[in-house]
């Protein structure tokens, strides 16, 4: 796999190769080169299968980390390709021409994180959250509790309890006295 890491570094400036376990590794590339590196991995390095595409909201450093999980069936090896994009202007190249199912993931990115993939088909159509009028719900600063309290009514008689405190009291009643 070192050859692949070196080749990715040479061609696309990939960095921070990390072997998570013998059959799974991760690597970082710049957002502007992610499409080209994925195309090369698919067409020339045998990573033909896109397992999934998702994002992680790293709000502390004002970035979304995109995660492309690929698989090389011949070598039985998985590769996770990461790239960071600006959280205030979240845009990334579409990969729908590389994999036929990628447009659905990109539609999800738009709806759940507000990440735009220009040119991706049907990206503005509602996916899971029909009629959603709040900020993208998978962002870390989306307060799901506040949203629920503002949108729905509590059922009468329901008591709320902090799960950790509740379990502590239940499991260790003496300690919580």
């Amino acid at each position, binding site marked *: 796999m070192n050859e692949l890491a070196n080749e990715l570094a040479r061609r696309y400036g990939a960095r921070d190769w990390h072997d*998570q376990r013998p059959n799974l590794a991760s690597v970082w590339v710049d957002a502007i080169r992610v499409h080209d590196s994925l195309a090369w991995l698919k067409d020339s390095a045998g990573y033909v299968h896109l397992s999934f595409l*998702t994002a992680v909201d790293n709000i502390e450093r004002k970035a979304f980390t995109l995660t492309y999980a690929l698989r090389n069936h011949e070598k039985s090896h998985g590769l996770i390709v990461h790239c960071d994009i600006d959280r205030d202007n979240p845009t990334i190249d579409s990969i729908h021409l590389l994999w036929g*199912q990628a447009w*659905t993931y990109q539609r999800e990115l738009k709806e759940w994180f507000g990440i735009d993939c220009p040119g991706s088909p*049907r990206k503005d159509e509602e996916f899971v959250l029909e009629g959603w009028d709040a900020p993208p719900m998978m962002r870390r600063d989306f307060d799901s509790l506040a949203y629920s309290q503002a949108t729905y009514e509590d059922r009468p008689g329901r008591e709320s309890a902090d799960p950790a405190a509740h379990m502590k009291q239940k499991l260790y009643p003496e300690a919580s006295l």
Partner: protein
Amino acid sequence: MKRDAMPRIPPEEKATFDLESGKYLVMWQGPQHPGITGNMSLRLVIEGDTVVDCETHVGYLHRGFEKLMERRLYMQNFPLVCRIAVPEPDFNEYCYAAALEELAGIEIPDKAVWLRTLSLEMIRLASFLMWIGGQAGAFGHGTIAQWSVTMRDYVLDLFEELSGGRIYHMYIIPGGVRGDVPKGFLQHVLETMDIIKKNLDDIELVMFHNAVYKMRAQGLGCIPPEWVDKYGITGPNARAAGVARDLRKDIGYLAYPRLDFQPLVGKVSDAYERSQLRLGEMYQAIDLIRQIVELMPKDGPFREKLPNPLYWKIPAGETYVAAECTRGEYGFYVVSDGSDKPRRIAVRGPSYTHAVSVMERLVRGVNIADVAGLMVSLHTYPPEIER
């Protein structure tokens, strides 16, 4: 026979139809419809009795699992993860537990490896039994469903004996499994496998030699082998197209490298061949369960000691753990920031591809009466899309 010629318009290129012309009819199939798997909905555009366009709509059953999990302790997510796939919750339990163990550096005992493998094969069998009832029922063959759901109940009896739960087992937990096998359980497993195998013989005779089933299922929803990589198709849908990929063999997780089996493959991935292949995988599951019962260590620890779950912090890192469920590649991507709650969990379900990109493309050109049969033949399950 290729009854439905390859649809010319891929789903990402949306076709437009003059709905005012009187030539077309918009029809919703689902979310409450006997021909729909799970609470999913298809918006169909019909010309005569032929489907010319289809959009998959999800979000009617479970939403927000991934968001909820970010707010809970690692251990508190266990009652959640199993609910992402009702017919086979154990794959969620395994992928989530294995991901946490990998990040936390926990090695599970050998007995737990075998018990997890047993649990996963048993639930594969139960899920396939539920599926084959739906597949036969979609083509008007209700008797098969009565037989197969009864057989599934026998497997659920085994789960109840093993874990106390019939549907959600929460048997696979970080560090191993929740308990050892009860006394006499393995004998019950073998006896149940004998009963189910006999029933499968009957199902094969009645369903797969039925002229109506053959006429309706053969040539329906053909998946060409080149679509497998293009659309990320996995599991029996890919294997029926001749692509011999099975994560149990390719990754070799749990006790699978120590078991004797080969992935089953077909030639033409139409509804008939896919169902035949899944029937073969049911026989295979029975064989694997028998092997597991024979090879499994009879004693030894079944669980590794864990830190206090209320204060359990997972070291920062990320991993992706996948397993071969009945529908294909099922996986959990887990990111930890070193705190007591996950930073991000993404669930990869095979239906994400099969029920949207592949379904929307395959259904075009199909007779409206065959939509349900085609959908079931892809073995789609919407909660793993909306999660």
